[in-house]
């Protein structure tokens, strides 16, 4: 097994180097760390590490990640093995790992994952504080996802975030008389109505879609000033603002694409947008790049713009980025090696090439990386640069907890909106049902 790892590592290192070389301007490193004293981590002798992370968006992501891991192995003699699993499976695999106390040493999970397993992971405060000092501080969401609630103890190391802005076809929006989508709810609805009239409708996922569905539901909630819980974590979903959001959605849904979006999964809007069936949606940058990289759809990519969804009552962009969040498990026999590994990966020498290789799919959690070449490589990805600085997270306004993760994964908000959109419930009934479910979930 050891042989395989090393060989794979070397192969990957080669591929990564090639990818770096090919990408020209992106190969430039621009971020310099400030002086800070790194924590002394005594790497255990004979340490080996197993890392589990979600699959790549783009091939260079995997190549450079592996190359960086191989370099760590070279420097420290710690053998590192990286496995990639599907997005939907990472939560399950994390659950199994946490529950059974065996398996990978480090899992790069999503969002609140370290908070779900808070007693199964070790604190990484020293590493986090050092990295914060060195690279201009952690951005807002990164702090929220990294630190245990109401403390300065870090249990997760955010690795990157992916925002989901409004994705729209310039030609269609212009055709109905707008330069860009309006920044207020009424104007946005008006635009969608007009788009519907010229048969170039919008469409947002309302199905059980972990990413897009929750993102859309969260936008509706937060832009109307509603939230599932208050700051203390008490359920606050059944409020006048929620009902207002539901009423708004009812009107908005009527303008959506034919066939409706109540059954949309995460990939449905990508399909519909790529086929010019749907002209305005919200998604991560994956949609844009998929269009851009396929000669057959490049024209659509050129006609595509990104902007933030109407913020309404929110102070900033009301979107919680999907964040990679690394955690080191207590059962790891080599915790120092694991921490050293994560620290190594987040240092500019490794992180910046990786960030650049991701072309904007992932945005940095540390402020200094805003200067990375990737953010000027294509004006259309610039909007993703600061998405980890949004003051919103899954479960806003409450603390991150198993419950906030559960509410997200059980689609409490998405289903509340979907039941109104499909006419199964009135806004009041839907809000009550959501409250009933939320009370159960947040009862502890």
């Amino acid at each position, binding site marked *: 097994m050891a042989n395989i790892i090393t060989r794979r590592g070397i192969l990957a290192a080669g591929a990564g180097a090639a990818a770096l070389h090919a990408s020209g301007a992106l190969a430039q490193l621009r971020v310099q760390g400030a002086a800070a004293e790194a924590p002394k981590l005594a790497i255990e002798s004979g340490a080996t590490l197993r890392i*589990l992370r*979600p*699959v*790549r*968006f783009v091939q260079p992501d995997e190549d450079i990640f592996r190359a960086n891991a191989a370099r760590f192995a070279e420097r420290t003699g710690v053998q590192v093995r990286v*496995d*990639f*699993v*599907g*997005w939907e*499976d990472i939560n*399950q*695999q994390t659950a*199994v790992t946490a*529950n*059974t*106390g*065996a*398996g*990978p040493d480090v899992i790069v999970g999503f969002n609140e994952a370290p908070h779900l397993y808070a007693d199964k992971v070790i604190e990484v405060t020293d590493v986090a504080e050092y990295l914060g000092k060195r690279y201009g501080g952690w951005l807002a969401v990164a702090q929220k996802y990294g630190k245990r609630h109401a403390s300065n103890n870090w249990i997760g190391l955010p690795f990157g975030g992916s925002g989901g802005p409004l994705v729209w076809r310039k030609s269609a929006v212009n055709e109905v008389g707008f330069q860009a989508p309006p920044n207020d709810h009424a104007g946005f609805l008006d635009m969608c109505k007009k788009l519907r009239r010229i048969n170039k409708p919008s469409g947002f996922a309302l199905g059980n879609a972990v*990413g*897009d569905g929750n993102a859309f539901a969260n936008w509706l909630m937060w832009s109307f000033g509603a939230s599932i819980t208050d700051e203390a974590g008490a359920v606050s979903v059944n409020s006048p603002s929620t009902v207002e959001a539901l009423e708004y959605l009812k009107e908005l849904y009527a303008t959506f694409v034919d066939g409706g979006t109540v059954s949309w999964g*995460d*990939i449905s809007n*990508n*399909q519909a947008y*790529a*086929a010019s*069936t749907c002209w305005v949606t919200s*998604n*991560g940058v*994956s*949609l844009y790049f*998929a269009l851009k990289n*396929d*000669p*057959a*759809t490049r024209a659509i990519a050129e006609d595509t713009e990104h902007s933030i969804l109407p913020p309404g009552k929110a102070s900033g962009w009301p979107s919680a980025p999907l964040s990679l969040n690394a955690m080191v498990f207590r059962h790891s026999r080599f915790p120092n090696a694991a921490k050293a590994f994560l620290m190594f990966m987040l240092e500019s020498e490794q992180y910046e090439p990786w960030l650049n290789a991701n072309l904007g*799919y992932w945005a940095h959690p540390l402020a200094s990386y805003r200067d990375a070449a990737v953010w000027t490589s294509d004006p259309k990805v610039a909007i993703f640069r600061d998405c980890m600085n949004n003051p919103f997270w899954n479960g806003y306004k409450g603390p991150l907890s198993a419950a906030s993760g559960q509410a997200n994964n059980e689609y409490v908000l998405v289903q509340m909106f979907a039941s109104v959109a499909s006419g199964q419930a009135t806004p009041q009934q839907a809000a009550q049902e959501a409250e009933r479910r939320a009370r159960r979930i947040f009862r502890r």
Partner: protein
Amino acid sequence: MTDARAAATTADDHGMAPPPDKPQATAPEALSWDSRSRRVVTIYVPLACFLFILLFPFYWMSVTAFKPNAELYDYKTYNPFWIGSPTLDHIHLLLFKTDYPRWLWTTMIVAFCSTVLSLVASTLAAYAIQRLRFKGSQYVGLAIYLAYLVPPSILFIPLATMVFQLGLFDSPLALILTYPTFLIPFCTWLLIGYFKSIPYELEECALIDGATRVQILWRITLPLAVPGLISAGIFSFTLSWNEFIYALAFIQSTEKKTVPVAILTELVTGDVYQWGALMAGSLLGSIPVALFYSFFVDYYVSSLTGAVKE
């Protein structure tokens, strides 16, 4: 094929008479024509409909496997039923850019081993229950049958804990040992039925002649039960090949995954599906089982009857 020939071949083909609703081939000319058109309406047309509906999703999968990405959703410019410019890209991606051949190999090993394991265990159990007739054998039989009622979706969390404790996590052995939990009950039941159909007298004679019970099992019962064994084997092989939840929960390394899990977890990147490769992968992955079936389908059919033969 004329009715006369049809009738003639039927007789020696499967040893059964012409279907009851069909008059004998000796019927008068007019009646025979009439029966032929009726046959088309009552048999061939419905059969064609069945085939069309059963096979359409496969047609769709095959077409998708060779379609370039640009044609996938663009129904306006391209006829979705046909491929504008067929491409082997997806197959190439599958075979050379992923671990597909390894997944296939792992799946085969897992399916084969768990099938053999289940067959051995169920043959012995069925033999003990049906032939050795120990006290309470019926209840043991019932208990094994009831084990079939426990769906894997209940079991996989506690099982995962055990798999870890036993140090089997991320090893094909975990699957080889857990798959028999849903294979043994069915196989045992099938084989009990099959052993029933083997006359007791044979064994009694052998016992009188001084053969040991092990000899009887090995020399008499088993050879006679081969069709039943094959049938149970096919069934187990298919179920292990298609198993999803355990394989998802117990295996973590890319190269140790089984085909259904690997295809789903490795060919879906974020919110982008590699449709072509997904479909190519599932079709290719089905070929070994399909081959298996086309060789053994007759055994399968005949042994199922054996299991419930009067």
